């Protein structure tokens, strides 16, 4: 866990990609879940942030 935070602080690719992946997965889950309309409403913005983040952080050094 501390390695993960260290990686984030040093702008390393691995942990940031992991974070973006989690955001995208969360967005997709919110988009298709049957529980609350409000989650559905905010799903797009979460996926969008995750996707843009993924594109940016995939250029960070390993």
């Amino acid at each position: 866990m501390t390695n993960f935070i260290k990686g984030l602080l040093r702008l390393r690719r691995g942990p940031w990609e992991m974070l973006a992946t989690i955001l995208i997965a969360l967005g997709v889950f919110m988009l298709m879940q049957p529980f609350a309309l409000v989650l559905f409403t905010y799903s797009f913005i979460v996926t969008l942030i995750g996707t843009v983040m993924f594109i940016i952080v995939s250029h960070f050094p390993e």
Partner: protein
Amino acid sequence: MPDKLAKRAALATPPKLAHKIRGLSDRAIAWIFIAPTIFLLLAVNIFPLIWTIRLSLTNFRTNRPNNAVEFVGIENYRKILTDADTWTSLQATAHFLIWTIVLQVLIGFTLAYLINKKFRGNDLWTTLIVLPMMLSPAVVGNFWTFLYQPQIGLFNYFISFLTGADPASFSMIGEVALAPWAIVIVDTWMWTPFVMLICLAGLRSIPSSIYEAAECDRASKWRQFWTITLPMALPFLMLAVLFRGIENFKMFDLVVQLTGGGPGSTTQLTSIDLKREAFEKWRTGYASAYAVILFVTVFGLASIYVKALNKVKDR
């Protein structure tokens, strides 16, 4: 003048270099070779994408070209993301997605595991099993509506043969309770071979020396499966799941031919919903915003997919 210089340089340099100068530079060739591809993809994908984003901010309707086109900001997005019907069609997609993936992974992995026992003729049977996934989903989906006919359909006959139920008593694509399963069954029939092929590659990538070592340590077969087979095949399984997930998220041809989204809107997956908005109601601006939402979702999933792809590539 530069020409002369080049000639003199060519004469003075060893033959290998001279050829490089006489021909185009590698850099130029690289660009000449890549440019047509990039250009075509820009014209057919990126330019339309930008156009879609622009349309998504307006109230444009293709069937009323004379109406004034107004800029409405993110109004279309707000409408879609608070619309309960759209939400319902995404839930229908989720049901389809989850069950097809679960079934395909279970059956596909089992098949791959069995084929990997290398019984006689396994190559031939693998090829035969793969056939359904190569065929046109629309044409096959259309024919499945015949197999699903009550009374005369082969599928209903098969079920009645197994369970004793009257083959005329149920209609897979006509009943609200059964239609979501009808599309899951056909998709599973069609795409299980895909998961099977990838799992088979995963199982075959495990060196037998690992099993031999485990055998020497007297690990049980059951333990070997959970500690060697499954973890080592997992990256491949992930690849298959992600790919099927993306494909089924945008599923159109098979389901539109099978049920057309019906009965009611029980099998109206997002792509079918989008098609109705865009090409039946002609709410182009609204549909464009809908399309952008799907684009971004698929793009996000695709980036995860490529990451998984690279992981498998190193093996």
